[in-house]
């Protein structure tokens, strides 16, 4: 499922505009990486797409169909799942109950879906009846992703999956996302760990001040000598040589 932003304006209050006529597309079955300095609107783009924020103007389309202004529940029904930044589990509940919550919008077939997710994450199966807060950081991220996969999403929005994870575990998470994309899931990812993420992504979009500043194939950007400037801030305009 392809994602298209058309001149989207959105923010947290009428006076605080974050997305400033943002336009971009993310293709089906690809990992599209959103990078840029703090405040560029990366996370806001994900939240607006998922319906946690309503765009003030512009349009958001999934496979050409407008979804601007829909609620998160409707987005889930459209096959869009969101894994927000940071810890997203309900720490007091067991691993199994967290998974069950992920399927709360399903009418039936929850057992089979949980089994399907557990088959993918054997480590989660071992901890099924433990409190979610007792899981390691990597296991928690796996559970969060597993919980999102319960709905067999066609689009996965994921915000900084590597935060708080060791480099080894981050690679594991990226590899998992790559497998999902190769199987046809459209992935839109925000990630500060840019170099690592670019190795697994297809394309990279650089945001600045709520606009698209640059769009490149991931492999190409990886060899960009000024890469760090793109996400530390500063202009992406090349100096004339």
């Amino acid at each position, binding site marked *: 499922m392809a994602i298209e932003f058309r001149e989207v304006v959105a923010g947290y209050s009428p006076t605080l505009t974050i997305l400033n006529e943002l336009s971009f597309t993310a293709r089906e079955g690809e990992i599209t990486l959103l990078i840029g300095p703090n405040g560029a609107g990366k996370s806001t783009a994900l939240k607006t797409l998922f319906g946690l924020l309503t765009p003030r103007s512009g349009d958001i389309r999934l496979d050409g169909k407008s979804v601007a202004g829909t609620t*998160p529940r409707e987005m889930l029904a459209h096959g869009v799942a969101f894994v927000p930044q940071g810890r997203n589990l309900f720490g007091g509940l067991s691993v199994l109950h967290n998974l069950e919550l992920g399927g709360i919008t399903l009418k039936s077939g929850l057992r089979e879906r949980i089994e399907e997710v557990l088959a993918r994450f054997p480590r989660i199966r071992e901890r099924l009846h433990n409190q979610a807060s007792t899981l390691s950081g990597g296991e928690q991220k796996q559970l969060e992703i597993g919980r999102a996969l319960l709905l067999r999403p066609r689009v996965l929005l994921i915000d900084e999956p590597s935060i708080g994870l060791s480099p080894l575990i981050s690679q594991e998470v990226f590899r998992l996302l790559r497998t999902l994309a190769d199987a046809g899931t459209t992935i839109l990812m925000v990630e500060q760990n840019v170099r690592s993420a670019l190795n697994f992504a297809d394309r990279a979009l650089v945001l600045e001040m709520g606009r698209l500043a640059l769009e490149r194939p991931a492999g190409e950007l990886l060899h960009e000598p000024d890469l760090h400037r793109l996400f530390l801030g500063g202009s992406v305009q090349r100096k004339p040589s």
Partner: protein
Amino acid sequence: MSKVEVTIVGAALIAIALAPLGLKNYGIYLLTLWCVYVMAGMGLNLTVGYAGQMSIGHAAFVGIGAYTAAILMKLGWSFWLVLPAAALLCFAVGLVLGFPALRVQHHYLAFATLGFNVLMFLFFRNEEWLTGGTFGISGIPRPPLFDRSGAYFYFTYGSTLVLALALAWIIRSPWGRAFAALRDNPIRAESLGVNIMAYTLLAFAIGAAFAGIAGAYFASLVEFIEPAPFSLTSSLMMLLMVIVGGSGRFFGPMLGAAIVVLLPEWLRVMKDWYLVMFGLAVVALMIWLPGGLLSIPERLRRA
């Protein structure tokens, strides 16, 4: 539940069932009152403990249930019709009271529910044509077969157990998970597709329905109702019951209600100092055991 817990609960259930054999009428009355408080407390525990909402207006729902039961029974309705009527009316009013919770949280919500309690108290006191005002309503019948105090206790006790099973079912169902998600983090819950609005309203409505049922049993127990038991003070007592026992713990209201009902009786020898002692005990508990008395085993295990 572990084997030890099952044994403790089983023994407690049997002990309570046998208790009236060794008690005089007043003791049986207190035990029945405990059951009534447990019913109301379980509802409040769902709203506050499991779903994370705030309510300082629970006694108003008990009042609505009690007055509904009293008025309808005086009109000749059977207890068996009055009971669902009280529960449904409270469920509906609870849904309405849930709406402020969609906009405000924590102490703001506390004040909204507090306002509701004051409003209902004034209604019970001032609308004499319906509620009898400060004179109240007397001569409220008990269901036939259960009109003697012992029989009425067993009837109330049995009903409390049925309600407890209903609550256990709710908590173990996907609804219970959604309530917990709502309590822990509404934004995260929404990201998973939990219908925040529906579950917030339901948390109030189901809690209120439990209170309405408790109110109906209360009216029949005391056979005379007036506005005082449904004042703000009673709502605070009910909140205290849930917190002292252990908010969000299944057996919290059972223990909390026992303390709120029985402690004043035991401390009666202290005369005027009783409230001082009670107040101090609560302050100490909140400082050292914010998780309530039922958090003691966990504390010991961790220590």
